[in-house]
């Protein structure tokens, strides 16, 4: 697969503020790419530069090998679904969807056929004559989608496409968008602040923060191998331990966390300077909880078995349950460990009734496998 979109050192400054700061990125043909980040991170500005609605202050953008610097938005092989949908209120659904073709001077009969086809694709058959104010939000979005796809662009840009829909509809549209992308085989570039959306739909995601691209990876890699603290924290929820890289060998490494009462041991090497500050990131669902006995006295009871080869002073903590939130499919516990630090642990509620559930006040062991932590250098 070749790069359909090539973004080379692109920056966009508004006065002194760099909305997009030296971003380089390749997006492949037929890919569903998501630009993910908190609001104000520059993702929308980057998308708008792809559409030609914003002009880069520096760098260049190539689409299909062609430099877009002097190509006006109306001449680009790119179409966009706007966050507000931007469905023309004075036109019917058919006029909206056919607008781009009419501009291009396509014959009326062909427009009609292609409009019907596009509406079929987004499941709006029969609504040709409706006006936008007679449509629901979800339907309006489908109109915007059909209108952008009908021109058979090389790239479809989607700006927060699901943000204005209610939760149930969002769920449906997620899979539907992915299916439509499959069907039309167009490269999709989507901007979203919703990590679930990005992880569920995209082949690859680019995480942005303060105008800079933090990491580009598949959803699983973003989650399991975050590049830095920002990504680890932004995607899902995470326990971050700041410590010192005490040992760094090709097949193992150890992070000493002052005051934690245990070190964090991982089964892979870290290419960092020994002795330097690093952060160990452990996802809440990767920590196991064990009852430490009925007694609430810390220091007694047998520790749970650790994976073979784990040093006894590592990957094992004791603490007490301070708070639990029951969320249906899972329960989130906040556990206070040594030094008053809170650790988040997530347990799936696999049984309807558990004889020895964890309660606030229980004293517990926390343990994790050496595969669980990700060691971050920044």
């Amino acid at each position: 697969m070749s790069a359909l979109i090539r973004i080379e050192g692109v920056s966009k400054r508004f006065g002194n503020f760099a909305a997009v700061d030296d971003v380089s990125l390749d997006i492949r043909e037929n890919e569903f790419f998501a630009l993910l980040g908190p609001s104000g991170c520059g993702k929308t500005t980057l998308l708008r530069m792809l559409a030609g609605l914003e002009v880069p202050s520096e760098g260049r953008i190539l689409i299909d090998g062609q430099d877009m610097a002097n190509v006006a938005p109306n001449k680009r092989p790119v179409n966009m679904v706007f966050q507000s949908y931007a469905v023309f209120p004075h036109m019917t659904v058919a006029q909206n969807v056919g607008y781009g073709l009419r501009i291009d001077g396509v014959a009326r009969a062909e427009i009609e056929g292609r409009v019907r086809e596009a509406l079929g694709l987004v499941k709006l058959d029969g609504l040709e004559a409706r006006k936008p104010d007679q449509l629901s939000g979800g339907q309006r979005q489908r109109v915007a989608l059909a209108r952008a796809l009908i021109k058979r662009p090389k790239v479809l840009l989607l700006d927060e496409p699901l943000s204005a829909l209610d939760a149930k509809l969002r769920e449906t549209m997620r899979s539907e968008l992915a299916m439509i992308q499959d069907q039309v085989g167009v490269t999709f570039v989507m901007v979203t602040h919703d990590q679930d959306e990005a992880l569920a739909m995209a082949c690859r995601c680019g995480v942005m923060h303060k105008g800079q691209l933090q990491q580009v990876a598949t959803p699983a890699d973003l989650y399991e191998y975050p590049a830095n603290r920002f990504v680890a924290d932004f995607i899902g929820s995470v326990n971050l331990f700041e410590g010192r890289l005490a040992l760094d060998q090709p097949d193992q490494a150890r992070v000493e966390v002052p005051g934690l009462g245990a070190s964090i041991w991982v089964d892979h090497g870290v290419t960092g300077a020994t002795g330097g500050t690093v952060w160990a990131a452990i996802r809440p669902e990767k920590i196991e909880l064990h009852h430490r006995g009925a007694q609430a006295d810390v220091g007694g009871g047998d520790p749970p078995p650790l994976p073979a080869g784990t040093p006894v002073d590592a990957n094992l903590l004791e603490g007490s349950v301070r708070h639990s939130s029951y969320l249906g499919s899972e329960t989130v516990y906040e556990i206070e460990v040594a030094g008053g630090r809170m650790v988040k642990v997530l347990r799936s509620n696999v049984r309807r009734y558990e004889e020895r559930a964890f309660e606030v006040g229980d004293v517990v062991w926390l343990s994790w496998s050496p595969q669980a932590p990700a060691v971050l250098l920044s």
Partner: protein
Amino acid sequence: MTEQPASKAHAAFATTFLAPAFWLIAFFLVPLGIIWAYSFGRTVGLTEIAIDGTFANYARIADPVYVEVFVKSIAYAALTTLLCLVVGFPVALAITFASDRAKIWLLLLIMLPFWTNLLVRTYALMAVLRTEGFVNDMLGWVGVGPLPLLHNNFAVVFGLVYVNLPFLVLPLYSALDRLDRSLLEASLDLGAGHLRTIFEIVVPLALPGILSGLLITFIPALGSYLTPDLLGGPDSQMIANVIERQFKRANDWPFGAALSFILMYLTFIAIAVQAVVTRRREALAR
């Protein structure tokens, strides 16, 4: 916002309502009513006016001389409005999409002449357009003229555009400013050029605002007195000048009153046309 029935709060209603209502009736509606009554009267003697219900004053307006004045006034006002639209639309468009800072300065640029006294502005035009004025000086340098720029119909329309341009730019700006920017961007994104976007998206969507802007320009232009009086020639009199003559010189108040009311009816017709067009478009949009 729920309104309270006035009958439930006598004191508060009386305090807020009575004084302004009295003023409106005594110092506006009554004077207008007298004029209206006069339009059905006859002059008898030097200062006496008998209101005898005659339509003779209105009949006189059918005289070609006056029909011509009305036609000319409407034509001037329409031409002025059209020219203001052509000149003002690009300006309003640029202001709408300017940065916040530039927007303030541009609005000020348009507003400042608007706040300046009408007579002063008209006088300034006289000085510039005269045969020995500034424009003819410049034309003289390039070997043209002097052209008769003042005291003719050209000067009247030029002056009306000069005076009324801000009246149109401001409502145009506020109409365009209400547009959702992403609609324009969507049109560009779908392959339309700027002109196409303006005619297919901007104009249809901003039409109610554009129409009311045209109305706000047309009405004062139609009733202009000062501009044709000072800049026009003997054949560029508009309705207001004829009315003034009836009251101040010809001393035919009943006829002047009838002319005034015809002018007022024309104004109301213009307002009604705008309202109907806007409503019909809204009905069609349903």
